[in-house]
C-alpha cells in the first residue's frame, strides 16, 4: 500500500516543515532580540557619555540659547576641545559623532564634527530628511533612526542638548552596520542550515506530492477500461475489501448475441457497440451506482439501495429498455442489441463478493436460457443456501483466463487395440495460470455449473477445437453438458461451424455426460438429432455412473458409449465390475453403439479389457493427455 505510506510520509514531512519553520522563526526572533539588546546596551553607554558632555557644556559655558552654542563652537579651540572629547566615543561601530543645530530657516548645520572621516566644516549645511530631526525639537527626548538608505549606517542616535527645557542643539551619533554584520555572520550558518533544511523538506514534500499525483494518474489508468471508460475488474478487486455490500444490489449484465455482431460487422463495430452501450448504461444509472466492465461484453453493476430497496429492478429495467430501444448506427448499418441481466438483491447475505457475483451470474444464465433480453432477480427465500466448496476466486479466475486467452485444450488419444491405431482424441480443457502452471478442470469446472461463465467457457473450447481440427484428418471428442447444448449461443456456434464444413463435422464427437441432469428428455433428443443432422457423432459419456435411462440412450441413437472410469479402474480385481462392463458392452453392441473404456491406467486393466469385446480404450497406461496430438509411436511409453 504505497499510497498510505506516501500519505503518512507527506504528513510527517508537513509536520516537520511546520516545526522547522517555527524554529526558524524563533531563530530570527532571537536574532532581532540580540540586535535590540546590543543596540540598547550601546545606546545606553553612548547616552551616559553624551549626558555628561551635555552637562559639562551647558553648565561650564552657561548655554541658554542656540546662539550661545553657536558662539561657543565658533571658537576654534573650544570646538577642537569638544571634538576631542566627543571623538572618544568613536569606535569601529560608532562612525560619526557631531553636533547639529537648527537655524532660523530650519536648516540643520554642523556646529562640531568629531568624526575622523568625511569631516564637515563649522556651520556647514547638512541636508537631512528623517522626521526624527524635527521630532527631537518637539519631544525633547533622544531619537533613534533606523537607517535603510544610508550607506554603511545602521542607526543614528540623536541626543538633545537641553537648556532650560529647550533644545539648543543635537548630538548626532551614526552607528555603522558592523555590529549587525557580526551578528548576522555569527548567526548565518544557523540560518543557512535551517534554510537548507526547509528547502530539502519542501523538495521531499514536492517529490511526495508528485508521487501521490502519479499514483492517482496511474490508479485512474489501472482502474479504467480504455474502451468503455467504465471501471474495470482491477477496480472491483481494489474496492472489494472495503465495499459494504449491505448498501448495494449486484447485477450482472451481458449483451445478447454480441459475438454475432463481432462476426457480422467486425471487431471495430463490436467495440463501437460496447462503447455506446456502456454510455447508455452510464446514462441509465445514478451517480452512486458503480458500473464495472467485468470482461468482454459482460458488466457488473453495483446498485446503491440505501434509500430504496426496489430501485435495483427499476434501474435494470430502465437500462434494459434503453438498450433495447437504441438503434446503433455503424458504417451505414442499423444494429439492434439487447441485454440480459441477473440481479442479486442482497449480495451481503453471501459469504463474499465473489459468491454474490456467482449467484448474479447464475441469474444471468437463467435470463439467457429463458430467451434473453430480460431481468432475472435472485430471491434468496426460494433458494436453499448450499455451502459451495468453490474457492471465491474461481469464477473470476476463469473469466480472467478467458479474457487473457489462457484457456487451452489437452488431447488424450483413444486407442483402437484391434488395429493398433489411434482412433481419435478426447479434448480436455485446461487453464494456464499466470505462473504458467497447467490447472486441471477439477479445480474450476464444478464451481461454474449453472453460471453464464460455464457456457462462455464451453463456447471458447468449441472454437479452439474447431479451429485446430479444421484442416487435419484427425477425429476428436468434445465433452458437452446438456445445459450447454441447449444454450442458444452454443447451438449457434456449433451450427455455424459444422453446417458449412461436413468434413469437420464428421470428425467431431460430442460426448454428452450421462450423469448430467436431463430434465427435458424431448429437448435433449431434439438437440442430439440436430448434432446427427450436422453429421457429427454423439457419445454418451461416463455411462454407468449416474441414473441410466436406457430408453433415452437408445432413443438418441448415440454412436458411442463411454463406460465410466469408476467401473474400469478396478476391473482387474473386481469381478462385479467386470460383469457390469461386460453387460454394458453387450447392451451397446445390441444398440448399435461402439464402446470406449476410460481410466485404463495399468497393464492389468488393459489386458483384462482385451478379454472383453471393447472397441476402444483410453487412459494413462496408453497415453496421458498432451498439449499436442500424440502419434501412435508415442503410445504405451
Amino acid at each position, binding site marked *: 500500500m504505497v499510497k498510505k505510506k506516501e500519505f503518512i510520509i507527506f504528513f510527517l514531512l508537513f509536520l516537520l516543515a511546520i516545526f522547522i519553520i517555527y524554529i526558524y522563526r524563533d531563530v530570527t526572533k532571537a536574532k532581532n532580540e540580540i540586535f535590540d539588546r546590543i543596540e540598547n546596551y550601546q545606546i545606553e553607554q553612548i547616552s551616559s557619555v553624551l549626558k555628561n558632555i551635555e552637562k559639562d557644556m551647558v553648565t561650564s559655558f552657561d548655554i541658554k540659547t542656540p546662539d550661545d552654542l553657536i558662539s561657543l563652537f565658533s571658537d576654534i579651540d573650544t570646538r577642537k576641545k569638544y571634538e576631542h572629547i566627543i571623538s572618544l566615543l568613536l569606535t569601529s561601530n560608532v562612525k560619526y559623532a557631531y553636533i547639529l543645530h537648527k537655524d532660523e530657516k530650519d*536648516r540643520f548645520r554642523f556646529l562640531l564634527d568629531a568624526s575622523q572621516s568625511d569631516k*564637515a566644516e563649522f556651520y*556647514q549645511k*547638512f*541636508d537631512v*530628511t528623517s522626521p526624527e530631526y524635527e521630532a527631537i525639537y518637539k519631544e525633547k527626548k533622544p531619537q533613534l533612526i533606523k537607517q535603510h538608505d544610508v*550607506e554603511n549606517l545602521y542607526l543614528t542616535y540623536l541626543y538633545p542638548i537641553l537648556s532650560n527645557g529647550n533644545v539648543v542643539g543635537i548630538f548626532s551619533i*551614526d552607528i555603522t552596520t558592523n555590529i549587525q554584520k557580526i551578528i548576522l555572520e555569527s548567526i548565518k550558518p544557523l540560518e*543557512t542550515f535551517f*534554510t537548507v533544511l526547509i528547502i530539502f523538506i519542501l523538495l521531499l514534500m514536492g517529490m511526495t506530492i508528485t508521487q501521490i499525483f502519479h499514483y492517482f494518474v496511474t490508479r485512474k489508468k489501472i482502474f479504467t477500461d480504455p474502451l468503455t471508460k467504465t471501471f474495470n475488474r482491477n477496480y472491483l478487486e481494489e474496492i472489494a475489501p472495503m465495499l459494504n455490500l449491505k448498501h448495494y444490489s449486484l447485477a450482472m449484465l451481458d449483451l445478447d448475441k454480441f459475438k454475432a455482431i463481432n462476426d457480422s460487422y467486425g471487431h471495430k463495430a463490436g467495440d463501437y457497440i460496447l462503447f455506446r452501450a456502456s454510455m447508455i448504461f452510464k446514462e441509465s444509472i445514478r451517480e452512486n451506482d458503480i458500473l464495472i466492465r467485468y470482461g468482454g461484453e459482460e458488466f457488473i453493476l453495483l446498485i446503491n439501495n440505501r434509500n430504496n430497496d426496489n430501485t435495483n429492478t427499476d434501474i435494470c429495467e430502465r437500462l434494459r429498455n434503453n438498450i433495447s430501444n437504441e438503434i446503433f448506427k455503424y458504417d451505414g448499418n442499423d444494429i439492434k442489441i439487447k441485454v440480459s441481466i441477473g440481479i442479486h438483491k442482497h449480495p451481503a447475505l453471501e459469504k463474499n463478493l465473489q459468491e454474490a457475483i456467482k449467484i448474479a451470474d447464475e441469474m444471468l444464465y437463467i435470463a439467457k436460457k429463458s430467451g434473453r433480453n430480460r431481468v432475472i432477480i435472485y430471491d434468496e427465500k426460494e433458494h436453499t443456501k448450499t455451502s459451495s466448496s468453490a474457492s471465491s476466486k474461481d469464477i473470476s479466475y476463469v473469466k480472467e483466463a478467458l479474457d487473457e486467452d489462457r484457456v487451452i485444450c489437452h488431447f488424450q488419444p483413444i486407442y483402437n487395440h484391434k488395429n493398433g491405431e489411434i482412433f481419435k482424441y478426447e479434448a480436455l480443457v485446461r487453464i494456464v495460470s499466470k505462473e504458467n502452471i497447467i490447472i486441471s478442470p477439477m479445480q474450476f469446472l464444478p464451481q461454474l455449473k449453472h453460471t453464464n461463465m460455464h457456457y462462455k467457457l464451453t463456447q471458447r473450447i468449441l472454437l479452439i477445437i474447431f479451429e485446430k481440427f479444421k484442416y487435419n484428418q484427425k477425429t476428436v471428442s468434445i465433452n458437452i453438458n446438456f445445459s450447454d447444448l441447449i444454450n442458444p449461443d452454443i447451438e449457434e456456434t456449433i451450427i455455424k461451424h459444422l453446417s458449412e464444413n461436413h468434413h469437420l463435422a464428421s470428425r467431431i464427437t460430442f460426448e454428452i455426460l450421462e450423469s448430467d441432469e436431463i430434465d427435458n428428455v424431448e429437448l435433449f433428443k431434439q438437440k442430439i438429432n440436430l448434432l446427427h443432422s450436422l453429421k457429427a457423432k454423439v457419445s454418451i459419456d461416463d455411462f454407468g455412473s449416474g441414473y441410466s435411462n436406457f430408453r433415452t440412450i437408445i432413443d438418441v441413437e448415440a454412436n458411442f458409449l463411454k463406460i465410466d472410469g469408476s467401473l474400469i479402474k478396478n476391473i482387474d480385481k473386481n469381478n462385479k465390475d467386470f460383469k457390469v462392463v461386460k453387460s454394458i458392452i453387450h447392451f451397446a453392441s445390441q444398440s448399435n453403439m461402439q464402446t470406449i473404456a476410460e481410466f485404463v491406467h495399468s497393464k492389468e486393466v488393459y489386458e483384462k479389457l482385451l478379454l472383453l469385446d471393447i472397441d476402444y480404450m483410453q487412459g494413462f497406461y496408453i497415453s496421458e493427455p498432451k498439449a499436442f496430438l500424440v502419434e501412435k509411436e508415442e503410445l504405451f511409453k
Partner: protein
Amino acid sequence: MKAVSIILFLTIALFASDNKDIMRAQILEKIILNISINETITVWSDNKELLAGFRKSNHLIISDICDKATVIIIENKKELNDDTCKNKPIFVLNYNLLKEVPKSFGAFFWKKGRPNIVIIESRIKSQNISVSKELNAYIEEKVW
C-alpha cells in the same frame, strides 16, 4: 546554498552601487534642469559615468569636450586646465571644491552617507544664473 548567497549579495551590492550612480545622475540632472543661464545648457563633466547617465535619460544636451559646454560638472580640479572652461558656470561634486574653484556656483556631494546640495547665492548672481524655487532650500550665502 553558499554560492547562491554570494551571487545574491554581489547582485545586490552591484545594484546598490549602480543605484548610487544613477541617483547622483538623476539629482544632478534635476539640478541642471532647474537652473537657467543666458544660453542653452550643454553639459560636460570629467566624470564619464555621470555623462553616460545623462545620455541614458536624454534630457540634457551633452558635450564631449569642455570647450563646447555651457555648464561644467567636475569632480577633480586638475581636469579644469583650459582657461575657457574655468570661466564657465561650474558645478562641483565635492564641498571643498567650492572653496577651490571660484567659478563654482554649486555642489552636490555625499556627507556622512546622505546626499547634500549647496548652491552659493553670490556666485549664481555674479554668473547670471537663475534657479527655480525648488532649489531655494539649498541656497547658501557663502561657503563655510
